[in-house]
């Protein structure tokens, strides 16, 4: 009897010790500070693309570059074109024009409008999503339509940006639509999904905008995302577990949740990080209109880039979107200004 009691006590104490050792480690999320002041600010001159026709670009759907060119989403629904293409060869001559990549309609390869877009991890597939049609258009890097996916809106709804990696669609959600979670990792092959990131602000409370994900990207190992109002990005594994944060500055405070009578009086939030792309084993982060280059291996900040269209004594460009493809960096400023620059120099030490 005494032996049994000793055995039980030993077992319980061992289990308790293990729990006490493991719990803090499991809960602990490393936050790394990326100090911009300790990294050189490289000033880069970029060239304005003198496109010879009027066009307005969507603020919600980002630009996507690939080997075959740059793909743009028009802002307004009046046009008959759902996707525009600016080929690399057209850019060799003066004053390139835009061509149509997808038209509006109900047939194969057609949609009523593109609401968001992304690229696969290694930029070999470009994915465009139409919320109205619940349809994905998939193009290869040469911008040939290779597939279409149809999901019923009951099965899958993407209301904002999204990412794609390891056969998984990584979809920001609202707590109203997803049981209080802000991310859905949907396996395209099996149809199974995982919910991740509990709501930061409860449903029905403000500031609801702080539940919005402003940028998201997939890498071979991780999912990387940033929230509206944050000066940091979060790193999750494909099981949806938060594994780290990389902070460039202090986040705007969220404060205690509160309710409002008129939804139109809801507070706004700034998107300090509106776009993230994975390229050449680096994470390229658009932060406060600058590009930050993080080495993927250890998330070390290697470079920061500021862009100028004229001389570097002039005011820096206000960049709100970018994409990298085929050795070229494309930048967007406002609704209709596009710039480009070669990128090889950025990766030199």
């Amino acid at each position, binding site marked *: 009897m005494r032996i049994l009691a000793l055995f039980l006590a030993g077992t319980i104490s061992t289990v308790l010790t293990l729990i006490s050792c493991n719990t803090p480690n499991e809960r602990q999320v490393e936050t790394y500070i990326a100090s911009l002041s300790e990294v050189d600010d490289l000033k880069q001159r970029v060239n304005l693309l003198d496109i010879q026709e009027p066009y*307005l670009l*969507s*603020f*919600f759907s980002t630009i996507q570059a690939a080997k075959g060119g740059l793909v743009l989403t028009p*802002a*307004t*629904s009046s046009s008959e074109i759902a996707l525009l293409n600016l080929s690399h060869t057209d850019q060799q001559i003066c004053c390139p024009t835009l061509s149509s990549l997808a038209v509006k309609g109900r047939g194969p390869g057609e949609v009523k*409008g593109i*609401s968001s877009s992304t690229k696969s991890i290694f930029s070999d597939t470009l994915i465009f999503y139409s*919320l*109205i049609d619940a349809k994905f258009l998939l193009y290869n890097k040469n911008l040939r339509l290779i597939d279409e996916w149809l999901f*019923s*809106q*009951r*099965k*899958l*709804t993407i*209301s*904002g940006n999204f990412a794609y990696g390891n056969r998984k669609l990584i979809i920001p*959600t*609202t707590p*109203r*639509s*997803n*049981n209080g*979670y802000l991310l*859905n990792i*949907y396996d395209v092959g099996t*149809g*199974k*999904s*995982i*919910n991740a990131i509990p709501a930061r602000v409860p449903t029905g409370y403000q500031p*609801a*905008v702080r*539940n*919005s994900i*402003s940028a998201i990207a997939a890498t071979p190992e991780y999912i990387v995302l940033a929230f*509206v109002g944050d000066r940091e990005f979060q790193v999750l594994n494909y099981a949806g577990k938060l594994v780290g944060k990389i902070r460039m500055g202090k986040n705007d405070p969220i404060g205690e949740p509160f309710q409002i009578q008129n*939804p*139109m009086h*809801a507070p*706004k*939030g*700034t*998107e*300090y990080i*509106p776009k993230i792309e994975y390229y050449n084993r680096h994470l390229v982060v658009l932060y*406060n*209109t600058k590009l930050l280059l993080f080495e993927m291996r250890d998330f070390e900040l290697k470079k920061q880039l500021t862009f100028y269209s004229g001389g570097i004594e002039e005011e820096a*460009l*206000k*960049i*709100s979107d970018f994409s990298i493809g085929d050795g070229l960096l494309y930048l967007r*400023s*406002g*609704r209709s200004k596009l710039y480009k620059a070669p990128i090889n120099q950025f990766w030199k030490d």
Partner: protein
Amino acid sequence: MKKFLLIFTTLFLLTIMPFNKITNAQDPGWFGTRYTCATDHCDIRLYQNEVFFIYWELEVRCLNDSGNYVRGSYSGSGVYPGSLCNGAVAL
């Protein structure tokens, strides 16, 4: 008549059953119509849940003078009040 009622009731239940599924990530039970609008500095999106008009969500993305996007997120129950680009956007 009884037989007809039984068949009708069964068919009706089979028709509405999918709407009664419990909400989860694989099957959000949330579908609606997207409305869009663009002004000089803003894109506006409205998602109106049109199954019994349970609720609406409005997302606004604007560019401010510093070159950063400013996001607004609004939601409410019932039908979205007002017209999309008139009065809703106060950014």
